[in-house]
């Protein structure tokens, strides 16, 4: 969750659009600590503060405008992602008659060419981190991505800070071996030497998570 929160560090007055539970909790943590200017939504049509109190109105049409203006940073999921950051949430197999129909491209094509995008992948595996995605929804750096900030998984944090803008291991989570990450990734990863360890929550952050952000412990069920 802290690694997800870190994705929004330095974004200022930007609309944070987290998809999924852990990114949502992470965005709230960021707003409560080092990113107080972030705009959060309730997932429907309201802008809300860190405790869910309404501070503004943002129906889909207005989200699309902020998106196009580049004033948003979304953290999406990915059913497949390649080393350039091309992401697929549409379907698995041949698009004309897929083996598995998934959600559809949604706003991923527009998000990735207009504003910063990060990804949250709760199960890091070679099926997700693949050499070739079946349908390019979010575009990667080889197809004109605006900014792909980080890819946070259950094992590590990855980014694209390489000369060719291909995926790189930024840090491994505590107690995870670099070899585990490489084995779970279906393409060669750039690896720094030494590999940093993802920072753990501070005592103040842990307290916020336990008392204000997720007192019910929903985070434990997702991981």
């Amino acid at each position, binding site marked *: 969750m802290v690694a997800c929160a870190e994705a929004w560090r330095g974004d200022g007055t930007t609309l944070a659009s987290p998809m999924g539970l852990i990114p949502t909790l992470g965005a709230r943590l960021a707003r409560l600590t080092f990113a107080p200017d972030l705009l959060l939504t309730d997932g429907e049509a309201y802008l809300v503060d860190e405790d869910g109190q309404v501070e503004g109105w943002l129906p889909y049409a207005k989200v699309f405008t902020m998106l196009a203006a580049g004033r948003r940073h979304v953290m999406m999921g990915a059913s497949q992602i390649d080393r350039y950051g091309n992401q697929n949430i549409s379907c698995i197999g041949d*698009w004309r008659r897929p083996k598995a129909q998934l959600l559809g491209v949604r706003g*991923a094509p527009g998000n990735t060419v207009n504003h910063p995008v990060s990804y949250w992948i709760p199960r890091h595996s070679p099926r997700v981190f693949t050499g070739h995605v079946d349908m390019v929804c979010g575009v990667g750096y080889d197809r004109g991505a605006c900014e792909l900030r980080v890819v946070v998984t259950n094992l590590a944090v990855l980014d694209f800070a390489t000369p060719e803008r291909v995926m790189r291991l930024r840090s491994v989570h505590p107690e995870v071996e670099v070899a585990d990450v490489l084995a779970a990734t279906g393409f060669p990863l750039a690896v720094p030497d030494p590999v940093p360890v993802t920072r753990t929550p501070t005592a103040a952050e842990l307290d916020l998570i336990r008392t204000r952000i997720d007192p019910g412990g929903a985070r434990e069920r997702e991981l």
Partner: protein
Amino acid sequence: MTPDEIVAELRDGMTIGIGGWGSRRKPMALVRAILCSPLKDLTIVSYAGPDVGLLVASGQARRVVTGFASLDSIPLEPNFRRARQAGTVELTELDEGMLHWGLMAAAHRLPFLPIRAGLGSGVLEVNPELRTVRSPYADHEELVAMPALRLDAALVHMNRADAAGNGQYLGPDPYFDDLFCLAAERAYVSCERIVPRLEGPPQTLLLNRAMVHGVTQTPNGAHFTSCVPDYGRDEAFQKRYAAAAADPEEWRRFTQTYLEKDEAAYQKAVQ
């Protein structure tokens, strides 16, 4: 008008836009009336939810134009998923912003509107008819020329309307219902209640009668999708719908129980 009278104005092969979003404020009573009609070969333009699922399952939708199909609390629309995997429905898959822009272009009588969404993505590969356009100004930026999505008819569901066709939403989001109506040759509104005089903040008066060609009162007509503040989504029924869609025998039973009779019978069955 009645839902059946509205559906009687539709024709085979039409392109029909359906308002709402996912499993939210869908004109389900009108969709159910289509299910009971012989209409076929429809192209459905929608931010797709169970509206699309039902019309795909009945075989009446030949093509779907959308960016996703979801039941919100159940991420994937089961009937759409099955039809795609069986190859029984054609798909025009667009970024949801492109869909917005296509409706906007149609509403403004423009041939297209430029947009960045889609550039570099598979959307341009699976829709080879889409073209790009270069800015004639100093930036010379290349953009997608999103063509107008002109609709033969639009179907939307409002919380309130008057008999003349002025429509009001009372929930948090208008979605794109006004644009669906403006992009359509003819627009039809179902609503929870027809009232003699619309009350409330003027910003809630989303549709005016110049945009609307027919109104029908269908209480609980968005069921099982949400229609707040009148009612929320019927999650238990949606679960039943999704479970039924996963099994052909169950689906046959579901359609017999709920979908083969008129709206009054449906409303009685889901009480």
